[in-house]
């Protein structure tokens, strides 16, 4: 809907966007790159993105510091499929270049994708893509038999068609190490069979949708489905297609949908290795209820089913609460007296959110950036994993200025828009949901209780002893893959190398005899922390190199590091390695583990701004004593 609006609006705004950029380019102003990124992200017009892409190409030929702030590693993406892939490819390339800097694109020929995929010598594989986008031929996705055929025959054909499409993806996977983005099928938006089309399983409408459902059900984890059916529905089916361009240039999708599709593909690519947000911090007045609690009182605020506005606020609360099932934790940051602010949580019958849903509750008169920093300290979660929502533009502004790592969302003036706005922000999308996610709130609350205990127990040893900790060390297990993948892609602070991997990349480690990967779980008398540490070691002759070592920060200073260290030495011995090599790759976030290896008794090989390398001889290593009772299952050897 938004794209349509943008498309029909006057071209005045767009020409001024282009004009601003041309001006910056002419004066070689490095602000060009930031504005280019902003404009590219907000623009919905096909020709404007093409123009922005041209400006980017021109800027790259001028020497004034290309794409500052983005990495210059080359990112390789291939697009193959059953229609003409240009200019869609141009849009994808531009939107990715804005995010990733240096993008190389390989373009398949029109409707040549089956040959390109099945021929192991094809240019596709010579290109060595990291991502392959497959846009299959829609014209063959239809039931070729009779409308009088049995429902079973049609269902069999649906499954056969989906499997055939997925087998092409499997081939790509076997012949390259690429992740695959598979576009599904967009049913025709035109009336044809009428009532019968709605009911008959072989109608275009039903057949394509059935194939799409089968694809979703059968796709392996390296196939990421780009839901063209949904995108066309969202855009408007009639607007999503362009009949004449099929005959002229073999393109099915209208320019409007091509923009939407390119944006979605770029989003999928970027989210493969990007963490979603972990904390949602809520303002209170006019955010989760209407009115001001300090002025209007418990009876005066608008909340609940007696008025449309009250109902909208209640629906927003229900959506916010549902986010906790994905592992998002909730906090409050409000300018209020604490007693006033907490009252509705305790007493208002229409409140969906209750005191126990909020892991950190800050209601005072200090500046909000200060409170956000306190919440971050308490939860041991970085501010870059925070989203803050408020109805007051001034509060949003101060947060953006003083805590720029926090994503601050200014709520729409209409509370009925709060839920769609939060959904459209796409900040809380997760690749998968693990059982651990559901109990996050409880875990963080337990952590707060533990801290209270910590304040009273001066003697650290007796405190740790009193926790009755149990640890379970286990080889990577396929059942744990979603959680392992989540930690690998989310952990920033206790993470020695910050190497991101997709679930399927992790899965390959299980198979590789030169890798050892294990996890550790921790529980104590207050509850289960779940899977909290991930380690990957790689054998290189006599040396076991620690490729990845990360830990959830909520178990800091609990001797998990020492327990993992003991396990690592045991595995090095099993591998016949005499030496363990540890690497620290510094990032903006992982300063807390800078001294990790020296603190564990490793000696330094080298240390500079780019990396630290450390080694430890396995011979004569004495296991470090901990208060954790360890149970280890080590099955690989």
């Amino acid at each position: 809907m938004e794209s349509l609006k943008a498309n029909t609006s006057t071209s005045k705004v767009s020409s001024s966007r282009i004009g601003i950029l041309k001006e910056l380019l002419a004066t070689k102003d490095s602000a060009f790159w930031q504005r280019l990124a902003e404009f590219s992200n907000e623009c919905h017009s096909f020709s404007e993105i093409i123009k922005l892409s041209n400006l980017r190409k021109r800027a790259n030929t001028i020497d004034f510091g290309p794409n500052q702030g983005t990495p210059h590693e080359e990112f390789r993406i291939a697009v193959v499929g059953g229609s003409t892939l240009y200019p869609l490819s141009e849009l994808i390339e531009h939107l990715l270049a804005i995010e990733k800097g240096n993008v190389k694109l390989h373009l398949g020929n029109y409707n040549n994708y089956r040959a390109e995929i099945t021929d192991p010598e094809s240019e596709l594989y010579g290109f060595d893509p990291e991502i392959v986008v497959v846009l299959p031929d829609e014209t063959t996705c239809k039931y070729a038999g009779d409308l009088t055929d049995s429902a079973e025959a049609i269902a069999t054909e649906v499954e056969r068609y989906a499997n055939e499409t997925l087998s092409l993806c499997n081939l790509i996977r076997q012949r390259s190490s690429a992740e695959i983005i598979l576009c599904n099928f967009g049913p025709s938006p035109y009336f044809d069979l009428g009532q019968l089309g709605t009911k008959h399983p072989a109608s275009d409408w039903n057949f394509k949708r059935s194939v799409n459902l089968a694809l979703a059900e059968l796709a392996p984890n390296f196939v990421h489905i780009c839901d063209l059916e949904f995108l066309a529905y969202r855009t408007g089916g009639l607007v999503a297609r362009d009949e004449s361009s099929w005959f002229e240039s073999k393109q099915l999708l209208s320019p409007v949908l091509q923009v939407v599709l390119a944006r979605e593909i770029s989003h999928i690519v970027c989210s493969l290795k990007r963490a979603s947000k972990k904390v949602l911090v809520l303002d209170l007045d006019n955010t989760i209820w209407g009115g001001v609690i300090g002025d209007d009182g418990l009876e005066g605020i608008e909340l609940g089913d007696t008025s449309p506005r009250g109902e909208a606020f209640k629906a927003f609360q229900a959506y916010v609460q549902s986010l906790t099932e994905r592992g998002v934790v909730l906090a409050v940051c409000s300018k209020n007296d604490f007693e006033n602010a907490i009252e509705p949580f305790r007493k208002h019958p229409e409140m969906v959110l209750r005191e126990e849903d909020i892991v950190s509750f800050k209601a005072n008169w200090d500046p909000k950036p200060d409170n956000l920093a306190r919440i971050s300290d308490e939860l041991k979660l970085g501010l870059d994993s925070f989203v803050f929502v408020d109805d007051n533009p001034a509060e949003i502004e101060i947060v953006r200025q003083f805590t720029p790592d926090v994503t601050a969302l200014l709520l729409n003036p209409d509370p009925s828009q709060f839920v769609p706005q939060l959904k459209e922000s796409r900040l809380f999308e997760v690749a998968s949901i693990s059982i651990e996610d559901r109990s996050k709130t409880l875990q963080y609350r337990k952590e707060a209780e533990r801290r209270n205990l910590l304040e009273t127990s001066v003697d650290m040893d007796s405190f740790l002893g009193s926790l009755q900790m149990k640890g379970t060390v286990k080889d990577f297990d396929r059942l744990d893959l979603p959680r392992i993948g989540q930690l690998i892609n989310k952990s920033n602070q206790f993470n020695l190398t910050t190497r991101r991997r997709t679930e399927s990349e992790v899965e390959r480690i299980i198979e590789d005899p030169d890798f050892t990967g294990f996890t550790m779980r921790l529980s104590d008398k207050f509850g289960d922390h779940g899977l909290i540490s991930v380690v990957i070691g790689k054998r290189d002759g006599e040396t076991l190199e620690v490729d990845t070592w990360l830990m959830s920060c909520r178990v800091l200073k609990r001797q998990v590091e020492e327990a993992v260290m003991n396990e690592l030495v045991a595995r090095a011995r099993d591998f016949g390695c005499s030496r363990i090599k540890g690497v620290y790759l510094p990032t903006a976030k992982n300063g807390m583990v800078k001294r990790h290896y020296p603190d564990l008794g490793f000696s330094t090989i080298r240390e500079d701004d780019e990396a630290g390398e450390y080694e430890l001889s396995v011979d004569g290593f004495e296991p470090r004593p901990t208060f954790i009772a360890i149970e280890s299952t080590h099955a690989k050897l």
Partner: protein
Amino acid sequence: MNMTRSEVLERLQEIFDDIFLDEVVVTPELSAKQVEEWDSLLHISLVVAVEEAFGVKFRVGEVEGTGNVGEFADLILKRLNGTNA
């Protein structure tokens, strides 16, 4: 909405400036063959850009039937004026 042919050509010049990387001077006699960058792929983007800029929709095959930019401008004028022919 009554544009003259030369106004259409002026607007086309602006679009050409943004769509082509090289500088292309729009004249009524100009044709795709004379511009190296103007291949069948770039042509797709160019036509969409023209449709979006003028708010018109060409019928299947009719852009292909124009031999040079002058005839293309005439076609734009025809669609702008909403003639059914």
